[in-house]
């Protein structure tokens, strides 16, 4: 294994790590409800084991050390020496949280720096069977303790090298000197801190042979700073001397020198071999070997004969790499990775081959068109010649004598031409027909292709849902509520881009359901309701939309109290009449909160407005229905994909804009005199409904052009708000591929993105929900200005 870790490998590792973390969490929750579920225990152990091995491969030492301890603990559980209890599950969940943060820190190119000794010690206690209240504490099955002879502090800092590294170290120690592992913590405050790695290297080099460093020499030589560096040194100097020469004033912070004996694990191993349950023993070399085996599927020849048997054993246990073929929700480093079912790629490949054929047909047609033109021009030239010929004859005096001849000749020639023209026409019609069918098939292929690519981006919503059981468990525990989480439609597929943005809003709404929606068990019993309460999370495909329901059977929302609060907060005026739906919509207003008390869980009324904004950003909608005493349901509706939308193209002067068809209700033609002004608003009357009108030309500050005889009004609607947009003309519907705009333009309100039209011009895609808001505001301001101006003039 080389020291060089390429980005691809890292991405793979992150993918796998997130997978394994999910798996551990899932198993832990299963374990909590059924403490003797051996399947869950096994899967837990395997996941921790794989995670440890992988982290060591990518040299994320803190993760591999930590998971190593976790694995130790799980191993004791697995072999039955320790009985699972809720205390243990808690410790393991806490440990998992730390692992999550470690991985997250690594994803940000950081290293987890919080103190985790408490949890580490608790894990160790589990491994040593000394955690309190474990009934089968010292069972007969307990494995003789032959492990670590070293003191724990040292043990935790032993870096696990792969087998290859060990061999390399062994071989390069040609003088068979004692080997030490020198672990150096560098002072990050030193202005020349990046020199430290090399400086220690040179000092150690003077004292002996530096066999290996982690990170490798090139990394140390690079401009990067490494907080902790491990040097493997073969030297005849004493441990104390090494310590002394490594120490550099204000450069090194902490130095740890420990003997690095390649043979020690082997001895431990043979001792373990005698014990009745050898696979439960964690002799270091075995871990190193099995770790190596996991990462290199092919079995490589291994130095020692004995371990091979064991290695094979471990290999069977080790889960296959990437056991779940689904793509994984990831962050940062990993966010660009998409795992796709290969059959979907095959479909795309099929379509591409069809396009290639299609292109060949078009090429042929192009040749045929060219030939037709040649043929046609030959005919025209012949025709012109004849024309000249006859005009010449007609102007001569010979006309009288040869009139009959001329007539015959003329008729014959015309008949010739007619035949030629007819046959040309037939041939040409063929070509046009062929062209039309080819272009039709191109149309079909491209829409299939579009769908295919879209499906590649589709990911099961399970990946977001999977974290909620833990969330609900933790929340209900914190709030002393009893809740069952029911999930449905986890296989519903969502665009990957959306999946990432969906997580936060969902977490927020679930928190809301658990915190505000759900009653305490006492309240529920008093109300004659069942305990535990149910929070249901459901995703479903509904036509062109994806719906997500978050419902609880809790206390529900009282519209009257929402109304009161809104009046109190001056969000609405006291005399405002609102439908129930509109009343619930007030909950999404900034700064609104119905909970009487602020809890740490659902926050302080900031949030639901952000939830709504986030969902609208994805062109989605969210609404609430609730029945007091029976429960509340949030419904999120999202488009299938964000990449391609159906758009209505409209023209405003010379500009073409695209409106997402999902928000277009209808379009009508009006004449300027239909525009009325009420209370400083421009409005139109559509079937006895008064709609406020917004001129796009005014919104985007386009220059005033001549008045037209008639305009079109596109009526758009978002969340029950309706509005008319005044445009010059409608161009038509089209599938629009959304291209994101560069950052500095995305802040421009009212614009959701851009697209490239067929002729290459760029057209802006409008964000209807923003425009509706913006439009109302701007209209008001403009009219206010106009009013002020006219007042001044008066």
């Amino acid at each position, binding site marked *: 294994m080389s020291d060089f870790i390429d980005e691809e490998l890292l991405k793979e590792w992150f993918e796998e790590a997130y997978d394994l973390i999910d798996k551990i969490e899932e198993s832990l929750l299963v374990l909590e409800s059924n403490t003797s579920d051996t399947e869950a225990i096994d899967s837990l152990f395997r996941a921790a084991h794989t995670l440890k091995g992988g982290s060591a491969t990518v040299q994320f030492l803190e993760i591999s050390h930590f998971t190593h301890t976790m694995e130790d603990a799980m191993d004791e559980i697995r072999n039955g020496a320790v009985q699972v209890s809720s205390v243990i599950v808690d410790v393991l969940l806490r440990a998992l949280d730390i692992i999550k943060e470690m991985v997250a820190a690594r994803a940000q190119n950081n290293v987890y720096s919080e103190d985790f000794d408490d949890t580490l010690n608790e894990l160790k206690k589990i491994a040593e069977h000394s955690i309190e209240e474990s009934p089968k504490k010292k069972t007969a099955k307990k494995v003789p303790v032959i492990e670590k002879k070293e003191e724990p502090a040292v043990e935790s800092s032993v870096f696990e090298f792969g087998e290859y590294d060990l061999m390399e170290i062994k071989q390069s120690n040609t003088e068979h000197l004692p080997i030490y592992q020198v672990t150096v913590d560098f002072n990050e405050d030193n*202005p*020349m801190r990046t*020199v430290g790695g*090399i*400086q220690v*290297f*040179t000092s150690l080099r003077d004292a002996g042979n530096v066999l290996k460093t982690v990170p490798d020499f090139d990394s140390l030589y690079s401009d990067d700073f490494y907080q902790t560096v491990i040097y493997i040194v073969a030297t005849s100097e004493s441990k104390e001397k090494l310590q002394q020469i490594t120490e550099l*004033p*204000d450069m090194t912070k902490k130095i740890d020198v420990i003997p690095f004996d390649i043979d020690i694990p082997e001895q431990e191993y043979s001792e373990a071999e005698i014990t009745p349950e050898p696979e439960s023993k964690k002799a270091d070399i075995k871990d190193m070997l099995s770790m190596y085996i996991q990462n290199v599927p092919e079995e490589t020849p291994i130095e020692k004969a004995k371990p091979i048997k064991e290695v094979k054993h471990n290999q069977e246990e080790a889960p296959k790499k990437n056991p779940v073929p689904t793509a994984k929700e990831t962050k940062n480093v990993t966010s660009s990775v998409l795992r796709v079912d290969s059959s979907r790629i095959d479909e795309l490949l099929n379509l591409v081959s069809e396009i290639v054929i299609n292109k060949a047909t078009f090429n042929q047609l192009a040749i045929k068109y060219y030939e037709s033109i040649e043929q046609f021009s030959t005919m025209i030239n012949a025709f012109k010649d004849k024309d000249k010929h006859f005009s010449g004859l007609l102007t001569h005096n010979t006309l009288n004598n040869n009139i009959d001849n001329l007539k015959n000749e003329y008729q014959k020639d015309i008949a010739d031409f007619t035949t030629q023209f007819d046959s040309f026409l037939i041939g040409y019609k063929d070509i046009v027909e062929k062209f039309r069918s080819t272009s039709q098939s191109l149309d079909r292929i491209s829409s299939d292709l579009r769908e295919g690519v879209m499906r590649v981006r589709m990911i099961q919503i399970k990946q977001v849902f999977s974290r909620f059981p833990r969330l609900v468990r933790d929340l209900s525990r914190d709030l002393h509520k009893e809740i069952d989480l029911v999930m449905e439609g986890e296989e519903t597929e969502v665009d990957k881009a959306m999946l990432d943005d969906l997580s936060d809003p969902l977490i927020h709404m679930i928190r809301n359901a658990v915190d505000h929606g759900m009653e305490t068990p006492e309240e529920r019993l008093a109300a004659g309701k069942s305990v535990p309460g149910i929070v249901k999370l459901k995703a479903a495909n509904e036509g062109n939309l994806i719906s997500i329901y978050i419902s609880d059977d809790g206390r529900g929302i009282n519209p009257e109290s929402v109304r009161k609060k809104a009046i109190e907060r001056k969000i609405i005026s006291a005399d405002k009449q609102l439908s129930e739906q509109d009343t619930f919509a007030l909950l999404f207003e900034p700064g609104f909160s119905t909970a009487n008390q602020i809890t740490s869980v659902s926050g302080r009324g900031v949030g639901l407005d952000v939830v709504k904004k986030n969902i609208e950003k994805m062109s989605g909608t969210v609404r609430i229905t609730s029945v007091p005493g029976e429960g509340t349901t949030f419904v999120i509706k999202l488009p299938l994909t964000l990449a391609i939308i159906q758009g209505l193209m409209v023209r405003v002067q010379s500009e073409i804009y695209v409106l997402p068809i999902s928000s277009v209700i209808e379009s009508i033609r009006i004449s300027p005199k239909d525009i009325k002004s009420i209370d400083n608003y421009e409005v139109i009357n559509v079937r006895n409904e008064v709609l406020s009108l917004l001129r796009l030309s005014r919104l985007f500050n386009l220059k005033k052009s001549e008045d037209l005889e008639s305009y079109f009004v596109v009526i758009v609607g978002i969340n029950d708000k309706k509005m008319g947009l005044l445009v010059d003309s409608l161009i038509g519907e089209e599938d629009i591929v959304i291209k994101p705009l560069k950052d500095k333009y995305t802040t421009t309100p009212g614009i959701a993105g851009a697209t490239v039209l067929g002729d290459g011009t760029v057209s802006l895609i409008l964000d209807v929900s923003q425009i509706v808001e913006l439009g109302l505001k701007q209209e008001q301001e403009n009219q206010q200005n106009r009013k002020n101006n006219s007042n001044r003039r008066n």
Partner: protein
Amino acid sequence: MKSASDFPTINAKIPDGLKEDGSKYRVLLVDDSIFVKKQLQQMLLSQDYEVVDTAADGEEAVAKYKQHYPNIDLVTMDITMPKMDGLTALEQIIEFDRSAKVVMISALGKEELVKKALLLGARNFIIKPLDRVKVLERLASVVKR
């Protein structure tokens, strides 16, 4: 109860330039800046080092080292100098005397050159602007090791 000697005085922190037998460590100062040379000289003299000679460029440094050899215990070597830079001078001095103790003087931001120098055999480095305590600590750690 703490006695007065438990509290280190400022001077107690700074190691001196005396060998175990009481004689002075002998230093060759190499720097093209007169100011730096002077500053360093003052620091060294204050702690009882002996400044054997000074040089203003790499060529001169190599020549002076050979001239005084083996009566030099330490060389402080600037990295950027006219005629011959500090790295080349270091290389030639080490080539001449494998056990030569050379400490590089570097400005901030020249990490790469410092690393090179360390790999070539420089024993340590000090950073400009010079901090008296740190400089003396480092030099002592080199000569007394």
